[in-house]
C-alpha cells in the first residue's frame, strides 16, 4: 500500500510523552498554551491554562497559515522556513515545524521573552522529532488498533448521519 495513504497511529506511550513535553514547555517558558498539530490541522495534543472551546478551529487556522507561509517561502526561494512568529498586542504565537509532519505552536503573552520561547521550543522540537520517528517506525495493522468490524460500523454511522 502507498505509505502516504496509511494513517498515522499515535500509541498511548507516545501521547503521554508528547503531553509531558508540552506541559514542560508551557511551564518552563511561562506560556499560556502549547499545541501539537498534524500538518493537516488536526490537534494531537494541547496543554495550557483553561479549557479552550475554539481549539479545533484554532488548529485548522494555524496549520493553514503555516502551510501558506511555507508556500510564500517557496516563492521567495527560501529553503529554511521552519518557524514563524506572530506578534499581537496581548498574545504572541510562535510556530515551529517538526519533520514536515507536525506543527508545534506556543501561545504566550508579554510576560515571556521570545528568546526563551525559541530556545526551549528548539529543545522540544528535537524531542518531538524523536517521538515522531518512533510513531513512524511502528507498523501496527489497522485491524489490531480499530478492530476488524470498525469499517462496517463506520459505514452504518455515515449512512445514518448523512441522510437526506
Amino acid at each position, binding site marked *: 500500500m502507498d505509505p502516504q*495513504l496509511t494513517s498515522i497511529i499515535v500509541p498511548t506511550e507516545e501521547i503521554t510523552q508528547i503531553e509531558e513535553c508540552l506541559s514542560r514547555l508551557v511551564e518552563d517558558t511561562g506560556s499560556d498554551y502549547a499545541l501539537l498539530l*498534524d500538518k493537516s490541522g488536526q490537534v494531537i495534543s494541547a496543554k495550557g491554562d483553561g479549557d479552550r472551546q475554539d481549539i479545533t*478551529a484554532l488548529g*485548522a*487556522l494555524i496549520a*493553514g497559515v503555516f502551510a501558506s507561509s511555507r508556500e510564500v517561502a517557496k516563492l521567495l526561494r527560501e529553503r529554511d522556513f521552519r518557524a514563524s512568529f506572530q506578534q499581537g498586542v496581548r498574545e504572541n504565537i510562535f510556530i515551529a515545524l517538526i519533520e514536515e509532519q507536525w506543527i508545534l505552536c506556543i501561545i504566550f503573552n508579554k510576560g515571556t521573552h521570545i528568546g526563551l520561547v525559541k530556545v526551549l521550543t528548539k529543545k522540544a522540537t528535537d524531542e518531538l522529532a524523536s517521538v515522531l520517528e518512533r510513531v513512524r517506525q511502528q507498523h501496527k495493522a489497522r485491524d489490531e488498533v480499530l478492530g476488524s468490524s470498525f469499517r462496517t460500523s463506520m459505514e452504518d454511522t455515515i449512512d445514518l448521519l448523512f*441522510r*437526506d
Partner: protein
Amino acid sequence: MALINVARREIHCKIVYYGPGMCGKTSNLQWIHGQVPAQAKGDLLSIATETERTLFFDFLPIDLGKVRGFQTRFHLYTVPGQVLYERTRVAVLNGADGVVFVADSQLEKLQENLNSLKELAQNLKNQNKKITSFPIVLQYNKRDIPPQYEEVTLTDGTRKRRQTSGALAVDVLDKYLNGANWSAFRGGCAARQGVFETLRAISKAVISQL
C-alpha cells in the same frame, strides 16, 4: 493522512472540496452545516472576501460520535477556487485524506473544470499521492441550470441544434473529466440533491483507506 490517537481513542480525517471558482464548494459545506444535527457539528468557519468568495478556506468539523469505541471526526475544508489562489489551494490540500472534486456542469465552465482537475492531479503528485489510489469522488454541480440551444446551418445546408449554455449532459462531463472512473454524483442547488450522497461516498472511501 488520517490520525489515530490511541490514548484518547480518536480518529481524525481531512476531506477537501476542490474545484474551479463559483462551482459550489462553499454551498456544499453550508448545506451540510444546515442539515447535520447540532451535537454532531462545530461552527462553520469561512474566510472569505467581501463578495463571499472563499479567500482562504471554509472549515466544518463533523463529529460522528463513537464508533467501536473510537471518537471519529471528519474535518471538511473547501479551497478558494479562483485561479489567483493557486498556492493557497496547495496549503489547504496539505495532509488531505480524500478530495471531492466539484465540477461546474455549465458548458462555458468546461475548460475551467479541466484546468482545475489538472492542477489537483499535480498538487497531489507533489504531496506524493497517487491520483489512481487516492480517495476522490466527483460531483457534477449546477445540474439545475437548463441547457440553451441555437439552430445553426452547416456548410452543406443542413440545420443543427447546438448547445450554447447551461448544464452539459452527464455523459459529456464523464468523457472529459472522469477518465479515472471515479464515483460521480449529480448536484443541483434546488433541493441540494447529491450533497449528502457525495459526502457519504467520500467518507466511505476515506475510511476504507485508514
